[in-house]
């Protein structure tokens, strides 16, 4: 195994863990598609980093968090649904990003690439995932309480709006590191599918969130490994491994219901 494949494997595991963990909240908040569409907003950020020569993570994160704040603000002020706002922003960002990114790098930005993951990328992924998971853990119960009843949450003195903003910031972090290996078009997968699989088989929040992170990391690790063996882009392979796990879980559940 080469150094690069070890870096990309470690990056993949970190990305899968954090995206799976944060995604478990995204799916409960019925924001799965928002998470998916939000990731596309990173494209113009990536374009700028390529054109100006700075770390793509920074460009992606700046755009993701910027859009997250805009969405958060517009939702509070206009009461439009998040879906509508994200839908409008995402198509704009995708269009702008595709026009801005030089063609040779476009495929990599859209579908991910593990062949040039550096030590710096791996270190960023490690640190950022740890931060994202740590802070998400501290607000996890608050977010769930806010979903069950906003009034109940507020009556315990919780600032629901601020907690949601912090959560969007953390999602932006997790998605920004995910883009490296899965690409902007497919990174939404890591937020949605592991959580959907875990929800199918969990009877409490603890199991659900842990299982979602583990499934996220298994999907991305197996995708990265397949990618380095087959020489194909990592993003689609990660998605295919994750979807296979999802289908197995659905089938297992179905069989358990069918069999006496």
């Amino acid at each position, binding site marked *: 195994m080469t150094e690069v494949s070890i870096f990309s494997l470690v990056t993949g595991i970190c990305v899968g863990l954090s995206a799976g963990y944060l995604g478990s909240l995204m799916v*409960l908040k*019925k924001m799965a598609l928002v998470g998916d569409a939000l990731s596309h907003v990173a494209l113009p950020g990536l374009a700028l980093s390529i054109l100006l020569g700075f770390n793509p993570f920074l460009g992606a994160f700046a755009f993701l968090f910027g859009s997250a704040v805009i969405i958060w603000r517009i939702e509070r002020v206009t009461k439009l649904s998040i879906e509508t706002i994200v839908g409008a922003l995402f198509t704009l960002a995708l269009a702008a990003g595709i026009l801005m990114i030089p063609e040779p790098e476009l495929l990599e930005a859209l579908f991910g690439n593990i062949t040039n993951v550096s030590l710096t990328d791996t270190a960023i992924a490690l640190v950022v995932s740890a931060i994202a998971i740590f802070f998400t853990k501290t607000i996890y*119960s*608050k977010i*769930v*309480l806010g*979903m*069950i*009843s906003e*009034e*109940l949450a*507020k*009556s*315990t*003195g*919780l600032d629901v709006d601020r907690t949601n903003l912090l959560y969007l910031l953390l999602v932006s972090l997790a998605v920004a590191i995910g883009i490296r290996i899965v690409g902007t078009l497919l990174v939404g997968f890591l937020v949605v599918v592991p959580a959907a699989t875990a*929800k199918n088989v*969990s*009877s*409490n*929040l*603890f*199991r*659900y969130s842990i299982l979602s992170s583990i499934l996220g990391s298994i999907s991305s690790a197996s995708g990265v490994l397949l990618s380095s063996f087959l020489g194909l882009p990592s993003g689609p392979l990660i998605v295919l491994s994750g979807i296979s796990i999802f289908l197995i879980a659905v089938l297992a559940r179905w069989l358990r219901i069918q069999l006496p």
Partner: protein
Amino acid sequence: MNQSIKDDTTDYILEVSNLTVNLQNQIILDNISFKLKRGTTLAIVGPNGAGKTVLFRALLNLLPYRGKIEWSKGVKIGYVPQRVSIGDIPISVQEFLSFKESSNMAGCLGAQDCLSLVGLDSGQLSNKELRVLSGGQLQRVLIAWAIADRPDVLLFDEPTAGVDLDSEEAIYEMLNRLEKENQITVLLISHDIHVVRDYSEYMLALNRSVIYFGGSEKIADPSLLEKIYGSGTVMKTRKERG
């Protein structure tokens, strides 16, 4: 309209004066004033859209208002909302109750203790998911949540909506017991004459402004009912409505 239940030497836990709530340029509550004695139960009645839930939200400081709401110093409030949306969140009873413990550590009852206070078997229920509980069980779990940090006041927004009659009876009996044993002041919103008459000492009839505030026995007065709900109204118990 500043009506008080007893003279000014009484120990009031809540004093509301000239409370007005304006939402999206509509007056929802208009100049509400009343006082509530510690350890009593107040039923809030009124037609749909009368502002009952908004009054609760103002009392909990969840929305902007004009006027004065004064809780006695250091009072702890427990709240059971009208609706919660569990949806398909995979959360166990124990996990839900632990949220309260983590948000309010000092003097908080454990999940087991609050479940037994509301007459639920913690051994059987702790690990069950909230989404599979019956309406009555869920309501009791919410009450358990509300009493976990030993509040002085409980606010119930239609505590038995969506609960079968037997469970409703049991929930009110339990509320009554909690109130007596722990000197808890209870404010509840109800549409049921039987609940107002049998489980509350006082009644606040609301339709944007205060129509009546005083002893709950007045609920049986047809002229007052007409004033609250309009002419031809006969307020029945849930049992009578079938």
